[in-house]
Each structure stands twice: as structure tokens, then as C-alpha cells.
């Protein structure tokens, strides 16, 4: 019999440890290996987990443990397992603590003969109000007619254009005009993509679909690939930098996709934002991918769907 194949042995040993790395990475990692892991805050009181990259480096850099005993190796792998398991738990989507309603979020209702008008304000943020057949997106504030006798429950979201941190909650307007605002769960980031000159963060919309918010360090344009209305689910604020929000509601099986395109430094970049669910799957999955190619000519800035009001543009 040939001698033990030491290189393979090491590979397999590391692979056995690597399963934990992969598990953690699969639950949290970004679409690209070079992109940083999703920014998350560990649960209070939990140990600071090692990041998948740290674990990988640790694995790759350690001396070859050919002389260690099986017991030592067992302990080492178990330690890796435990650390990755803690991380996996901490980053599990949907387990985040309920966030507080931000103190600068102002919700008010005014009445007129035409009915009630809801106003949601948070300066310097991208706002969204969804529900009762409406889907409104704007900077700083949103006004929305809610009818004369509505007790509708709506979902509000605010996104910081700088950090892309999103907070979400519910609000309801009673027949007496009183408004109740609650914070539900801060949506955990499911997918991030930070390649090239864009930064996209996607998360569940709480109703089976997804919301993706992107900033692009270049003029950019986005479009829906669904149906025959390219502006559906696309909002952008174009300029030298571009802020975009893509909504991908999923009401059943099927696919929904948005595309973001821009050019910078002679490279054309296409970002694809895709949600899909097929029969037999409990929930939809979100994927964000990007690809680039040298382009022969520069882009002339154009905004396809500048549906975010341009007044009082914020710096982001």
C-alpha cells in the first residue's frame, strides 16, 4: 500500500472543519467571496463570533496538524464548529430584536372634507409606506390619502441612504383619526453586494417578497423585467451618485427581477436583482449578482424612472 497521501489528508481534515465555515457562510455571506460579510450585531450577551473570513484564514494559515492526535483534532474541529454555530445563530435572519421606533419619525393625520391624509416624515431618509393597495416611496416625507373611515394597517420603512440601514414597522389609522405606530422587527440583511461602484442591500419585505436598496457612485438607471411596465417596483434618485430602491413583492410561485445598469471608468456594470420561488419551496429566495464588461463609449447620464421627488436632495 502506498504511504498516506498527506496533502489530501490535510485537505480532508480541513474540509471537515470547513463544513462549519461553509454553513455559517451560507447563511450570511455575500454574493461574492471578496465582498465583506453582512454587517450584523450579535445578540446581546453572546460571544463575538469569528467571521467566516477569519475562520477561513485561520484554517488556511495553521500549520499542518499531521502529528496531532485524533483527540486534539476533534477538540479543534469542535471548537470551530461551536464558534461558527454561534455566528450562525446570531446572524439568523428574522431573529433580530425588535427595534425602537426612531424618535425622529413623525406620523400625523390631517382631516379634510375629502378624507384623512396620512403624513409620514423622517428627514434625511428614504421612506416607504406599503399597504391598502398603495406603495409609496419618497425622500423625507410621504403623504397618503387613507380614506374617511379607514382602519388600514400599513407598513412603514425608513432607509438611511448612507448606511442603507432599514427600519420597519406598522402603523394604523383609526376611524377616529388616531394613528398607532409600532416597530416590528428590523429587517435583517439577507443579501448584500458591494462590488464595482455599487452597494446593494436586500432584505425580506415581511410579506414574502424583498426590498433592495442600492447606492451607486455613478449615474445609473434601473428597470423592472416583469410584465410590461418597466417602472414597476423601481424608484431612483439620479445624479452623480444614484440612490435606488427596488421592490420585489412575491405573492406566489414565479420569478421577479430588476436590473440596474451603470458605467464607470470604461466598465459597464449590470446588477441583477432576482427573487424566485418554485412549487415545493416554502419561501422565495433573493439573489443579487453583478457582471461587468469594458464598454467602448461613456454613458450619458439619464434617469429612466426618477420617481423619488428631487426637491431637497440629501447628501448621501
Amino acid at each position, binding site marked *: 500500500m*502506498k504511504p*498516506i497521501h498527506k496533502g*489530501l*489528508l490535510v*485537505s*480532508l*481534515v*480541513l*474540509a*471537515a*472543519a*470547513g*463544513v*462549519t*465555515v*461553509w*454553513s455559517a457562510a*451560507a447563511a450570511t455571506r455575500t*454574493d461574492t*467571496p471578496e465582498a465583506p460579510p453582512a454587517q450584523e450585531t450579535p445578540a446581546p450577551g453572546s460571544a463575538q463570533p469569528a467571521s467566516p473570513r477569519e475562520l*477561513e484564514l485561520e*484554517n*488556511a494559515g495553521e500549520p499542518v*496538524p499531521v502529528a496531532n*492526535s*485524533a483527540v486534539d*483534532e*476533534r477538540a479543534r*474541529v469542535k471548537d470551530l464548529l461551536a464558534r461558527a454555530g454561534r455566528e*450562525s445563530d446570531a446572524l439568523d435572519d428574522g431573529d433580530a430584536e425588535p427595534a425602537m421606533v426612531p424618535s425622529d419619525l413623525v406620523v400625523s393625520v390631517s382631516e379634510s372634507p375629502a378624507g384623512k391624509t396620512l403624513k409620514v416624515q423622517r428627514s434625511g431618509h428614504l421612506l416607504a409606506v406599503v399597504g391598502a393597495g398603495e406603495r409609496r416611496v419618497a425622500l423625507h416625507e410621504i403623504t397618503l390619502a387613507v380614506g374617511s373611515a379607514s382602519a388600514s394597517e400599513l407598513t412603514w420603512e425608513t432607509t438611511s441612504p448612507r448606511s442603507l440601514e432599514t427600519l420597519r414597522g406598522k402603523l394604523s389609522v383609526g376611524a377616529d383619526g388616531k394613528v398607532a405606530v409600532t416597530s416590528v422587527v428590523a429587517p435583517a440583511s439577507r443579501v448584500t453586494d458591494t462590488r464595482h461602484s455599487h452597494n446593494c442591500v436586500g432584505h425580506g419585505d415581511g410579506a414574502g417578497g424583498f426590498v433592495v436598496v442600492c447606492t451607486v457612485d455613478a449615474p445609473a*438607471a434601473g*428597470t423592472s*423585467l*416583469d*410584465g410590461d*411596465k*418597466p417602472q414597476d417596483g423601481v424608484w431612483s434618485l439620479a445624479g452623480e451618485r444614484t440612490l435606488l430602491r427596488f421592490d420585489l413583492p412575491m405573492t406566489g410561485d414565479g*420569478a421577479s*427581477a430588476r*436590473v440596474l*445598469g*451603470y*458605467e464607470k471608468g470604461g466598465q*459597464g456594470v*449590470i446588477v*441583477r436583482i432576482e427573487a*424566485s420561488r*418554485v*412549487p*415545493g419551496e416554502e419561501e422565495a429566495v433573493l439573489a443579487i*449578482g453583478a*457582471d461587468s*464588461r469594458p*464598454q*467602448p*463609449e461613456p*454613458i*450619458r447620464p*439619464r434617469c*429612466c424612472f426618477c420617481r423619488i421627488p428631487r426637491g431637497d436632495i440629501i447628501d448621501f
Partner: protein
Amino acid sequence: MRSPRLLAALALGAMCFPATASALSLPAEPPPPHRGGALHLDRKNLVAYVADADNAALHRVDLISGDVTSAPLDCAPQEVVAVSDTQLAVSLRACGKVAFVSVAGIGEPIVIGSVDVPAEPWGLAATGSGAVLVTSAWGRTLTSIDASTMTATFALDLPREPRGVTLSPDSRRAFVTHAVGDAVSIVDLAPDAGGEKPAVRSVHALKGQHRNKVDRAAGAGTLHTTASLSYTAVWNERGTRLFVPHLLVQNGQDTTHFIAGGYGGVSVQEDTGVATVAVIAGATEEPLAPPGDSTAHASLARIHSDFRGTPAIAPAGSPARQARAAAVVGDSLLVASFGTGELVELDARSLDPAMSVKRRFAVGDGPSGVDVDPTTQIAVVWSQLAHDVSVVNLGSGTVEKIPVSTDPLSGAMALGRRLFHAEGDHRTSRDGRACASCHPEGRADGLVWRLGSGARKTLFLAGRLEHGPYGWNGEHPALEDNISETISRLGGMGLSKDELSALALYVKTGLEAPSDTTVPASAQAMVQRGKTVFESDQVGCVWCHKLDQEASDRSLHDVGSRSKDEERASFRTPPLRFVSGAGPYFHDGRYATLEDVLDQNLDRMGNTTSLSADDRTALLAFLRSL
């Protein structure tokens, strides 16, 4: 004896598997196989079994010790699949058999029997209940074999050039891929209606529905209308999505477009073929793509200037070319890229995973089989041209290689084979396409291209190049000259003299011609009658199609086939050997079938209009036997 440390590591791997399964949301029922192609991984013992076509052997590769033991096979194998823990099935492409191999114990595998099947058995799938399905590439069939008795239970006709086969998780349907065309064949193995035989359906799912929408939105001037090179299909872990890697093709009138003034005044030619992956919903058999009309989204996310209507350059897509095998682990689709010597990791959550490349692992040349072990998170790859097994650690990204066998080919032949399959080599084409991109296994992709001299169909090469001259107009006495002219037409920078000689040697003598054109006994009388018609003075086919020279006199003839944009009217008599697999017909592919050729012949090539119906049928049968 194995290393106790490794056993400990594997035990820990097994311990952690439940956590892994939870993290990846594995279904409660057993997942479908993770593997594909010429390698099967015994996950329990970490032993790889590889089908080595060059050495006509099945190798047992112990991943722990690196030991290799081999069992000789009757001829070159193609794929291997596990029938049970102790038995494998191997498709023997070169001799029309499926061999059954005992792998009990740690000794060398032992061939325990074989079953004859139609010509060129290729893809394999095992049902789990003791049946093995095998595709026959040249024989165009799907055969079911009872592994316990080693007898064929049924055979179904399939469309042209079938390759891979995979079963749905409930084993009620088989999905067959094809090297030619944009369809996946779906075989209902257990029809609901009692007593009905299994039936074959074609689903045109490889039409780039999503990719074309993305390109249109980006303002690219591409429209990929058809497909080829679909070698394999693999399910995701839940068994809900079927991934089918293939080549998405833009051919015909708009094969190329040029970006005026691009890149310092050098015109840029758009890629005409992009490697892509169709995602098919298992329940509905529909490809995943956003609904609606793609024309509504044209250029709305464009990445280019609209100066003079210049189109953008579409993103290239996956580097995985000639994807011979694939496997899935978690959210990763691993594709063996035969043409680039890589294992390419794609995002399995995407609508077109080919556009979401995660990582690329350099493995040996010509990867043709991959299997994964979710527990230890390794992918194991067999590389036919390098004759080694690569163990890819998906956690760390490291790749370890185990030499398995040696290359029996001569240096020139081996070089020619590498050149024929090498993708991304700009010496052979401007866009890096390999010879094998259009000539899979030396056959034809069934497509018609516009490459500077009018429409030209892809030629069937294997077994048809013994005699010159070469070229549509017989302009090249030497094959090397014809290859050189083709490379020039494709925009390649050119090969050295030695490389040209090696490539010519391989395409002339190294490509595997269809191994078996034996006429079934039931058809022999009809074929013989057709031969009599073919050779008769009244019909006169044989005047130009000399049967002793691949059915061609290699001379130029004007048979009135010139198109209005053609410069020349005379074309070299095409060889008729293997003509049944060489369609479409005529230099510009104007006729889809041999029936069309006869219907439209108008006595330009032999006097066929006066044939009786029976003689016509017999002539067609004879042509298909060549």
C-alpha cells in the same frame, strides 16, 4: 489502513451534518444525487470511482491514501453511476454496452456483466429501485436496464445527440439533455394512465428567456435564439429546481455586430455564444424567468452611450464552457468546465446562475465528472485530459490533485486534443470559442452561421476527413490549410505550424466517429434496396457520392445551390458518411431533413423525382445507415 486522524475528522463531519442540513434547509426526504458525469463519489468511504476513457478503465481512487486500483473495461467508458452501495454501472461509449461493476470491499472493481445498448451509450441515472437509465448519443435512445438481471426492459427514441440524464426526485420523470438544440427531453416513466408506456416530450426550455431580457435591458444588441452543448442536468438539494448548463447561441443573420470606433478605432465583435444555465422548475417544467414582454424593457438600464445607436457589450456570463458535469451543494452550483480546466462555482439562487460566478477552481485539464460530499464539504473532480482527480476543499478553497493514470496519446495527438477543446484561446478565435464549441465530439451543433462568406452550417468532422481536398469549395489540399483559414475567419491570431499539424492530426484521426452504424436485422432488406437505388444508373447518386471515399468524390459540382449572395456556384461534394447526424443540409443549412433534400432536389443531384414511394423510403433508410 486509514489514518485515525482522518477517521476522526470524518466522524466529526458526520456529527456536524445535522447542523449543516438545518442551515441549508435540506428536505426531509432523501435528496437527489449531487453528482454528474464520469465520477462517482462513495461518500461513506471517501473513494472516487472514475471512468477513464483514454485508458478504457474504471479506477478506484482512495482519497485518503491516494491509492488507485483499476479494472479494465472492454472499451472507452463515458459515465459512471452507483446502482447500489456495492454496484456501479458504466456506460461504454465506444462499444455500445453498459457494464456492471462490483465494488464490494477495498480491492479493485470487478466487471460482473454487461448489456448491449444502442450506439454510444453516454449518460446514466439510477432509479434507486434497481433500474438504470442510459442515453445513447448516436443511437438516439433512452434504454432502461434492470440491474439485477442485467437485461434491457425498454428503449425509447429520443431527439438527436442526447447526452446527460437525471431523474426527478420521485423517479417518475427522466430529464435528458442534448448536445444539439434548445430542448430538454422529458420522459414520463410512470404515466398515470394505466398500461401506457413511458413517453417522451420535448420542452424548449433552453432559449435564454432571462438572459435575453437582461441583455435587452442593458442595451446590448444581442438576441440569443437557440442553444447547444447541453451535456448535463442536476437538481438543487430540495429537488425543486433543475439546472441545465448549456451554450446560448446567437446565429443567423445577426451573428455579429460591430461597435464603431470602439477600443481606439478597432471594431469590437459581440460574442455570439454565452455559457448559461437554465433553471427549470421541476413541478411546472418551465424555465424560471420574469413574466412579460421583454421588448418593453429595451435599453432602460442601458450601460452605454446612445450615440449613433451604438449597442452595449453584454456581460460575458459564466466562464464554464463545455460543461460536462455539475453538482450542487447548498446554494452553490458547481460546473465542470471541460474547455477551461476549471470547476466553476455559481450562485444556485439566481435565475441564471451563469451570470453569478462565485469562485473558480483550477483543476486538471478536461474535467468531465464532479461529485460532492456535503458532510466534508469537498468536491471531487475527474479530469480526463490531465488524468487526475482534484479534491476541492469548498471551505478553504484549496485544491489537491491525485495522479490517477497516464495519457496514452502521443504528444502531438494530446496537443491537438487540447487545442480542439481549449476555450479562451484567442489564437484559435477572436472571442475565444473552441473548435469543440461548435463541433461537440467532432460532430455538428446543427447550427448555421454567418462568418464572412455567407451562411454556412457547422460541419460534421468525425470520421469524414480522411480524404481531401477540404473546404466548401475544395480550395485546400491540406487539412492544415483549411483549419488555418477557419481560424482566420473566426478572428483568431493563428497557430504555429506544429500546433496546426497537431490539431489536424487530432481532427483527422483522433475524433471518435460514431462507433456503431449496424443496421438492425429488421431493416436490412430496406437498406439493401436503398443501396441498390443509390447505386443505380437511373438515379445516379453514386456518381458523385463514391461509397469508398466517405461517400464523396471530393470534386466540385454546380447543382444550382448557390444563394444570391454567394460568389461561387460550385461546391465540393459533401461526404454522406454519418449524414443522418449531420443536418441541416446543404452548405447553408437550407434543408432541415433528408426528406426535405429529396423533396426539393428537382433532379439536380441524381434523378430522384421519379422514385416510387417505396424506393424513396428505401433510399432514405440507406442514407441513414451510412
